[in-house]
């Protein structure tokens, strides 16, 4: 039996970063807001307190904070000629769940995309010719929104988080110590950059010697205490080295818990229900309007929650699946190239270079999620791609996020994975090595997409999402070129030896890469090329908004959260200032 509940103004589906941001914005605008979260309530003092937060086994390897795939996973394959099979265990990406979701166990790497990243098609076409954006069956697009449109909203997220960093471009003026390639900022970072440990410092010196432009990684692991615009207090990071895959016990990593929840949970017009999974967005008979959402809770009770506004703010893979299961928008067909839902799924193209010293104690356990010195000389279109045969790029970071010994012991080229030789290499190199991360873009491709699996079903009987993805030649060429640039910096540090971990072969679900899945609910300037408009509003059902990196038409060479948050604030402002006054499409098709 399905119980119909009292209507609300807005229902928020999934309570991570974007759900928390939209809840705060819409509550402040006076709406009655209900958030439905599939997972449990989580908070610092109860769920990842300092007495037990630094537990590599439990959080990283036993997935204590991640989505439990035993009841619901997705199916995966590299191309349409294969049969997709379930991702039976988390690996390549670590899906979040619960209040705060991935915002609890992220690294806190807060980036803005480059102005040219929002114009991937038109900019590259203009500079490198028409074929540069269609070679290798690329299907890249412009975003329908520009960096300048988003700048105030990027800033809003920095103010919320207290982001630590050094501006490289303040209102068009290049600033010493920052990233000279970044788009113009309207304000300096709220807090100064973190102090750099030995590894990132060596990287910075070597990069400078080579004529590169190193700067401290912008970070949500704060360099000093901060009180944000919502009155939330964030502490100074203690460099314990347990960020990514872990909750911060010290209130010093920006997360929904440390920045938004103390404020929004106290609002009298806000309700949160946990252990409540939305199954479907319900539509009116004409399918032009959402009437609310159906959900089931962990006790098996089913509900229909009527709502005037439906905000999809679950992770991109769930958002896309909900659109497909609800029949919102036309599913993408890779054979014809027609349809949009599921189109342009993309990822992140990662490689690395390990550096080994004899004479330098790196002490990698002194770390933080975004503790790095970075060069952006070869990201996006910051360099001339003529004759290189690819578009896109990567940042290269001398990064020490921690020295967690099950995950992060680097051994030299040729070291076996076990036996005395492995043990001796681990003992010799642990304190004297670190890694350069090459964090590459991933262009969209005709054959990479998301749809519903024909065979596998979740515990509710719904079709699982099916992911068809592989890296294309564009990505391999980009990654090889960038890995070589990283190796140059690594060698300039004069280490005993280095090891290149290139991005080779097909995408593999087993080794962890990043939880930066993008696309499938892409934004654009008209309904034939996109699922949502520049305000993340569904072209087909205008009272449905789809947040998150699903909106990215392709992925840039940066971590996505800053852009995800900026898009959410941009959308919230349009909802409040335009949509609520006159509900309907915010952009005419």
């Amino acid at each position, binding site marked *: 039996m399905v119980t119909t509940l009292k209507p609300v103004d807005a229902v928020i589906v999934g309570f991570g970063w974007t759900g928390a941001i939209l809840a705060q914005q819409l509550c402040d605008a006076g709406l009655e807001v209900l958030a439905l979260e599939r997972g*449990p*309530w989580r*908070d610092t003092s*109860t769920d990842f307190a*300092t*007495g*037990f937060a*630094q*537990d*590599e*086994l439990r959080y990283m*390897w*036993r997935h204590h904070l*991640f*989505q*439990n*795939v*035993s*009841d619901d996973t997705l199916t995966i*394959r590299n191309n349409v000629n*294969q049969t997709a*099979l379930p*991702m039976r*265990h*988390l*690996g390549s990406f670590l899906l979040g769940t619960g209040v705060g979701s991935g915002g609890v166990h992220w690294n806190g790497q807060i980036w803005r995309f480059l102005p040219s990243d929002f114009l991937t098609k038109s900019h590259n076409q203009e500079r490198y010719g028409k074929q540069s954006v269609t070679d290798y069956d690329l299907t890249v697009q412009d975003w329908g929104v520009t960096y300048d449109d988003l700048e105030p909203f990027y800033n809003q997220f920095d103010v919320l988080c207290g982001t630590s960093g050094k501006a490289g471009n303040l209102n068009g003026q290049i600033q010493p110590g920052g990233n000279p390639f970044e788009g113009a900022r309207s304000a300096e970072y709220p807090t100064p950059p973190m102090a*750099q*440990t030995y590894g990132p410092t060596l990287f910075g010196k070597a990069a400078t010697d080579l004529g590169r432009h190193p700067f401290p990684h912008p970070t949500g692991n704060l360099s000093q205490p901060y009180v944000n615009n919502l009155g939330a207090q964030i502490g100074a990071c*203690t*460099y*314990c080295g347990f960020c990514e895959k872990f909750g911060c*016990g010290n209130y010093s990593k920006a997360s929904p818990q440390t920045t938004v929840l103390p404020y929004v*949970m106290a609002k*009298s017009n806000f*309700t949160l*229900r*946990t*252990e409540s999974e939305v199954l479907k967005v319900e539509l009116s008979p004409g399918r032009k309007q959402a009437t609310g959402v159906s959900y089931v*809770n*962990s*006790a098996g*009770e089913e509900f229909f929650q009527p709502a005037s506004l439906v905000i999809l703010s679950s992770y991109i893979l769930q958002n896309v699946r909900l659109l497909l299961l609800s029949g919102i928008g036309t599913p993408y067909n890779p054979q014809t190239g027609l349809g949009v839902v599921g189109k342009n799924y993309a990822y992140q193209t990662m490689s690395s270079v390990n550096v080994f010293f004899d004479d330098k104690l790196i002490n990698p*356990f*002194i770390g933080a999620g975004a503790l790095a010195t970075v060069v952006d000389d070869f990201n996006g279109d910051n360099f001339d791609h003529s004759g290189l045969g690819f578009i896109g790029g990567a940042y290269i970071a001398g990064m020490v996020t921690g*020295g967690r*010994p*099950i995950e992060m*012991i680097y051994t030299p080229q040729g070291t076996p*994975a*076990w*036996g*005395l030789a*492995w*043990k001796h290499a681990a*003992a010799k190199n*642990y304190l004297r090595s670190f890694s350069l991360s090459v964090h590459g873009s991933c262009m969209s491709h005709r054959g990479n997409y998301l749809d519903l699996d024909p*065979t*596998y079903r979740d515990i509710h009987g719904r079709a699982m999402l099916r992911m068809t993805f592989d890296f294309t030649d564009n990505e391999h060429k980009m990654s090889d070129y960038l890995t070589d640039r990283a190796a140059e910096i690594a060698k300039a540090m004069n280490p005993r030896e280095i090891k290149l971990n290139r991005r080779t072969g097909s995408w593999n*679900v*087993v080794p962890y890469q990043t939880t930066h899945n993008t696309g499938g609910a892409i934004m654009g300037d008209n309904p034939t090329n996109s699922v949502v408009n520049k305000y993340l509003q569904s072209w087909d059902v205008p009272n449905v908004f789809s947040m998150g990196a699903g909106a990215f038409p392709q992925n840039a060479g940066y971590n996505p959260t800053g852009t995800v948050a900026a898009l959410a604030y941009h959308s919230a402002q349009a909802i409040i200032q335009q949509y609520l006054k006159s509900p309907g499409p915010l952009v005419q098709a």
Partner: protein
Amino acid sequence: MDKPVPGRRQFLIGTAVVVGTGLAGVLGTTVRDGELGAPPRSFRGGVPWTEGQADAPPGVSGEDYKFFTPAERMFIEAAVSRLIPNDEVGPGALEANVPFFLDRQLAGPFGRGDHYYLGGPWPKGTPEQGYQSRFSPAQVYRAAIAAIDKHTRANFNGTDFAKLSDDDRDKLLKSMESGSLQLEDGVDAKTFFTMLLQNTKEGYFSDPIYGGNKDMAAWKMIGFPGAHYDYREWVTRHGEPVPFPPVSFKGRPGWNGES
């Protein structure tokens, strides 16, 4: 800096363990590790706070083996002592108590496959599609140990794996690692080897609260200080040795008058 409040961590953990055990007893069922299965809750009017609800790690107790049979235990000891052998540089997996760690892991939620999707159908996948077995980890271990012993008895004059020479065990482990060893009864040797090696390193390097990494000796060998909370004074002291002895969730020798 070197003298934390005596027993603080121990107190936190001790308290939470008692609460957890009590709950499980009252409900009469195992509390499921994961997001589904907790009762639905509704929140309005503020951040909730309930005393005594810290989600502290479960830890392990006892010394007896709960999962491995005596024969399986011999197999595991013979295997992990080759994966991480003992010498003067640092402990072997056996000396670090990894077999006991594995026993407790396989007897618990990990062994049951609580974070694995095990539904069908189960066709063989590509290497890129990762784990595709119907077995839970506990079932993988049990089936693989039996299949490997069957193989060695057939090929080494009736000898179990545990009784083979170091060289023969190394050769077999290498053939599992490469995937060249073919086993019967639905066991994929490479899948088992990958899991065993990963779990062995987990037992070697995880917090001693889980039963391995005895005396934090594996941490001492590499120089990892463990669950330290604050390194601020060392951030810009580049290249200096950090003199902290390792600390676990239950403290370190010297705390609370323990040696």
